[in-house]
C-alpha cells in the first residue's frame, strides 16, 4: 500500500466532519472517491496534506506514519495535491507557476528544466503561452496548468480534488483522458469527484463517502453497476 488512511476523525468549527474514514491507495492504482456535496471528500484530502488538524486516526504513506505533519512537508515526501478550484498563483505567468511546483528540489537546476520540458511535451499549449499570466486562462486550461504544476513536484502520488467542477463537458472528457493516461504511465492517483459516472469509468477501485464516512467500496465497475450508486449518483 502506498497511501493508507485509517479511522480518520476530524472536527472543524465544533462539528465532526469526518468519522472513522478509512481507505487506501496501492502503487499504480487510480482510486476514486465519490460523494455529494458536503460528504467530506475535500476535508479528507486536506487532512492528509496536513491542512486540517486530525483529532484521531492515522495517515500512513510509504509505510511511515505521517499523521499531523505540516503541509509544507508534503512536496518533499512525494505527496502532491491538486487543489479544488485550481488555485493557481493568479498574477504570475504559467512558467512561474510550474517552476513553483519544483520548489522542493529547486537547487538542482538541470532536473527542474528537464521536468519543465516534460510538462511542456505533455501539454503543448502551455509551452505556447508560457509567459501569459495565469488568471487570464480559461477554467479548463487552468486545470491543466494545475495538474502540470503538480507533476513538476515529482510526486509519488497525485491527489486531485474536484477537477471537473465548473467546466464544460468536452473539457471534462479531455481531462479524464489525461488522468487516465497519467495513470497508465505509472502514476498513482487519488481522484475526488462529484462527477461519478466518468470518474468511476476510469477508476481501478473506488469508495463512496456520505456524511463524513466511507459507506461503500469496490472496483470501478462494481460501483458503476451498483443499484444504490446508480440511484444516488448516476441519475437513474
Amino acid at each position: 500500500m502506498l497511501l493508507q488512511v485509517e479511522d480518520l476523525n476530524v472536527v472543524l468549527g465544533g462539528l465532526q466532519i469526518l468519522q472513522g474514514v478509512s481507505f487506501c491507495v496501492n502503487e499504480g492504482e487510480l482510486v476514486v472517491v465519490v460523494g455529494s456535496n458536503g460528504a467530506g471528500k475535500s476535508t479528507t484530502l486536506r487532512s492528509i496534506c496536513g491542512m486540517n488538524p486530525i483529532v484521531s486516526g492515522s495517515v500512513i504513506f510509504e509505510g511511515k506514519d505521517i499523521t499531523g505533519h505540516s503541509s509544507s512537508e508534503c512536496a518533499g515526501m512525494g505527496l502532491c495535491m491538486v487543489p479544488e478550484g485550481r488555485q493557481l498563483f493568479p498574477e504570475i505567468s504559467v512558467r512561474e507557476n510550474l517552476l513553483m511546483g519544483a520548489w522542493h528540489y529547486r537547487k538542482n537546476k538541470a532536473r527542474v528544466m528537464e521536468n519543465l520540458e516534460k510538462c511542456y511535451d505533455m501539454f503543448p499549449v502551455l509551452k505556447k503561452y508560457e509567459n501569459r499570466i495565469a488568471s487570464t486562462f480559461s477554467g479548463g486550461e487552468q486545470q491543466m496548468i494545475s495538474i502540470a504544476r503538480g507533476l513538476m513536484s515529482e510526486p509519488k502520488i497525485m491527489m486531485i480534488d474536484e477537477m471537473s467542477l465548473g467546466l464544460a463537458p468536452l473539457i471534462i472528457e479531455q481531462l479524464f483522458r489525461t488522468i487516465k493516461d497519467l495513470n497508465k504511465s505509472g502514476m498513482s492517483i487519488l481522484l475526488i469527484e462529484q462527477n461519478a459516472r466518468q470518474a468511476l469509468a476510469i477508476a481501478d477501485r473506488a469508495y463512496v463517502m456520505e456524511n463524513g464516512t466511507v459507506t461503500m467500496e469496490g472496483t470501478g465497475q462494481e460501483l458503476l453497476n451498483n443499484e444504490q450508486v446508480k440511484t444516488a449518483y448516476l441519475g437513474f
Partner: protein
Amino acid sequence: MPRCSSCCIERGDVLVTLTAIISYIVNGILMGGLYGLTSAAWSFQCGALKFANFAYGACIMFTMYLTYWPIAMWGWPLPLTIVFVLAFNVVLGWVMRKTVLRPNNRNTQILCTMGLQLIIINLANFFFTSYPRDFGLLEKRFYFTENISIGLTQLFCFVLSGAILIGFQLFLNKTWTGRAIRAVVQNRDVASLMGVKSERILDLAFSISYIMIAIAGIMLMTMFTVDPNFGTTWQSYAFIICISAGIGNLYGAFLSGLIIGVVSSLIKGIVGPFYHDPILYAMFVIILLLRPYGIFNKAENVARTI
C-alpha cells in the same frame, strides 16, 4: 560668502524665474528619490505582504536616532554603526512579525501598529530626549550654473535608492526566494503545498523590507535633523504615494515618489510653503477620485502588483 547682490535678479520683488523653476524641479526629483524608496518599502509591506504597518514612520525615526547616537555620542566608526543599524532593523522586523503583526486580521494590525508607533515615539523621547539632533554636516553642492545646483549627498542617496529598488525588484523576479515570496503572497496555502514554509518566507520578506527602512534611515540622517515626531510626516507622504501609485506597485511607488517630490518643491517655491500641505493633500484626493486604483494601475491590473 558672496553677498546677495551677486545672485539677486533685479527685475521686481518676488520672481518666479526659469532658473528658479528648474532648481525646484531638479531638487524635487532628488528628494523624490528618497520619498520613493521609503514609500516603496512601505508599499511592499502593506500591499504585497498585506501587512498594514502604521509604525513605519516611527521605525524610520528610530533608525535615524540609532544612526546618530553611536556616532555622535559614543564615537563609533561609520561601518560599525551601519552594521548595527541593519542588524537592529532586521531583528525589529522579526519581532514585529511575531508580536504585533501575528494576527492576520488587517484591522487588528492597523490598531496594533498604531499603538506600537506611539510606544516607539515615547521610547525615543525617553532615551534620546526631544531635542532635535543632526550631524551638522554641510552638504557639498554641484553647480550646473550659478543659480542651479544639486546637493551631492542627495544625489548619492537618489542613485542608491534607485539601485536598491531595482535590485529588490530583480530579487523578486529572478530568484527562487523572490518567486516564493510572490507565490506566498498570492496563495499561502498552495505555496505551502509546494514545500514553501510560508511563515518563514513572510518573516524573511518583512525583514528584507526592514533592511530597506534601515538604509533609508541612515541616508535620511545624513541629510536631516531628527526629533521624535520626524516619522509622522514621512508616514503621511508614504501613504499618499503608495495609494496614488497603487498599493504593491514598487516601480510605481518610486515614480510616484518622484512626482510628489517635484510637485512638493514647486508648490513650496511658487505658491508658498504655507499652502503646501493643503494643496498636496487636495491633489491626492482628486487623484483618488479620478483613478481609485492608483495612477499606474488599470482596474484589471489591481491584483497584479509585484
